[in-house]
């Protein structure tokens, strides 16, 4: 703190002299006037693809992820590689001005622009659960999405519904592909999506001029083609049977397998273990918490409870573990046939008694006969 005060003392000048200093510099230019000639001159020879990035039922986590981009950095993306004409979280314009640039791009570059969608789209109650400028997300997606040259769904919400679509899905939230049947949608699930998978997809598109190969769920193979579990650095501990049993125990500190703490790595396709997050600093398992399967269709519901291995049956609540249900099946069957056995025995008691007696008779007779 004190060093900071010295720094200010050393550098900053009093408000008055600062103002004087600044006002000595010329007045502002009136922008449009100044810009128009240069703009006109420069429009050709710029091949940055226009991008419309739209957020609906999102938490903006995927946009935040975008801001963590490093290869290329988000600055380079915005200035050098893309023309990010619409992105509510970043763009300078608001209200009419913002909508204007969205529609301008959509018309001018019909069939050419890249449409990136973050967050699920609510279809319930005619879409009133998400509107922008008085228009429902459903209508906007149908309009802007249909005319796009490439559609990318960033994050699990826009890919498969994600959080808003979790039981009981109050708003009828769906992923983009459900609203645009027939259109190719590149899904980049993850909660959030890992920005390196977005830059990877864009670079692939710019380099090879086509969408990357995808799996049955519309996920690029280069990012989702392998299971967490099969790339995990703790896999050897899984096979060796070395598991974390309690948070903070010896195994946890030693980096053993989190299978018994509910890790969903065995069910999740994502490149977290190889790519990692924040420029390769870490990923969930590396930091001691199991994978939650955030990149899978059906996440959240099929991946919860977080600390259990298999899903609970919806409605039955926390206690309805698979083991309990299975145990009940076996116990029931045992009980039924035990009673059946008991009843049969009592019903046949007389016969058994006679048989015993008769058998004793025969034994007696035969032994007598032998004497």
């Amino acid at each position, binding site marked *: 703190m004190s060093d900071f005060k010295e720094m200010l003392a050393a550098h900053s000048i009093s408000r008055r002299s600062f103002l004087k200093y600044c006002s000595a510099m010329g007045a502002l230019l009136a922008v449009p006037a100044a810009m128009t000639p240069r703009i006109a001159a420069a429009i050709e020879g710029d091949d940055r693809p226009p991008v419309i990035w739209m957020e609906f039922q999102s938490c903006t986590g995927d946009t935040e992820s975008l801001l963590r981009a490093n290869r290329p950095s988000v600055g380079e993306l915005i200035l050098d590689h893309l023309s990010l004409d619409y992105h509510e979280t970043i763009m300078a314009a608001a209200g009419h001005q913002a909508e204007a640039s969205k529609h301008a791009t959509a018309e001018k570059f019909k069939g050419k622009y890249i449409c990136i969608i973050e967050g699920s789209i609510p279809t319930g109650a005619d879409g009133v659960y998400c509107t922008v400028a008085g228009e429902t997300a459903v209508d906007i997606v149908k309009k802007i999405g249909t005319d796009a040259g490439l559609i990318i769904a960033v994050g699990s919400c826009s890919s498969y519904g994600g959080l808003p679509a979790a039981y009981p899905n109050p708003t009828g939230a769906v992923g983009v592909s459900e609203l645009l049947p027939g259109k190719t949608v590149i899904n980049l699930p993850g909660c959030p999506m890992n920005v390196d998978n977005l830059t990877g997809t864009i670079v692939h598109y710019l380099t090879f001029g086509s969408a990357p190969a995808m799996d049955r769920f519309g996920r690029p193979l280069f990012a989702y083609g392998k299971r967490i579990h099969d790339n995990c650095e703790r896999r050897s501990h899984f096979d060796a049977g070395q598991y974390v049993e309690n948070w903070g125990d010896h195994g946890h500190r030693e980096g053993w397998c989190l299978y018994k703490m509910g890790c*969903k790595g065995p*069910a999740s396709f994502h490149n977290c273990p190889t790519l990692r997050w924040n420029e390769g600093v870490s990923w969930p398992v590396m930091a001691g918490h199991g994978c939650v*399967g955030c990149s899978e269709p059906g996440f959240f519901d*099929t991946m919860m409870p977080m600390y259990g291995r298999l*899903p609970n049956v919806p409605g039955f609540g926390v206690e309805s573990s698979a083991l309990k*249900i299975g145990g009940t*099946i076996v116990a029931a069957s045992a009980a039924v046939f035990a009673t059946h056995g008991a009843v049969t025995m009592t019903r046949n008691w007389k016969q058994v008694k006679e048989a015993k007696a008769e058998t004793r008779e025969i034994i007696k007779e035969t032994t007598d006969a032998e004497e």
Partner: protein
Amino acid sequence: MAEISGTTVASTEQPMECAVRRYLYVWEGQIRIIHWVNFFCILILSITGYFIHNPFMAADQHPYIMGHMRHIHYVTGVIFAGGVLARILALFVLSNRFASWRGIPNPFNRNDRETFWAYIKFYTFFSKDTPHVIGHNPVAVVAYIFLFALFLFQILSGFALWSQADPNGTMYALSGWLFGLMSNQWVRWVHFMIMFMIAGFVINHIYSVILFDFKTKSGEISSIFSGWKPDRRD
């Protein structure tokens, strides 16, 4: 063959002696082998499978224990798949009429229907009369059909789960379509649940073979070991 396919409903008071008309070689070798191969496969698959579900043994005394368990589980799974397939094939080839598809009661055949109801009445204590057939107990056959449905799903889901280790491989191409129908977590869940359903069947199964062995005094149990069943005349 009329009699052996028909039913003899024993009277409530069965005579304590009954002459055996002749012995029939009901369960031929291949059927008995398949039966016991599947039995042991299921035993092993259930033990290793439960371990996969919940690794209860600590590693220190068994290094690489999960690796071995999964290896055994997969190999046994392949054998089991063979066993189940073989039994289904045996419905059509290389098996006598008891073990073949003809052993399956025909709902359009009056006699078969009566036999079936006789068994149901007996099981539910509505009748004291113990029905008896040489081949399959028709109620058991229905259970067997459900059982084999479970086997087939267990095999499909098992291979599908296995194939996830190489989603670009042939196994995934053959079984991966399952994940289009249900998420892999639910596939696991069902795969786990079917284990308990099979256990439920086994209890039922062993109980009823003992039951009929006792009631009909026809060496029911030994037949799955030896193959012989007496053709009784009451």
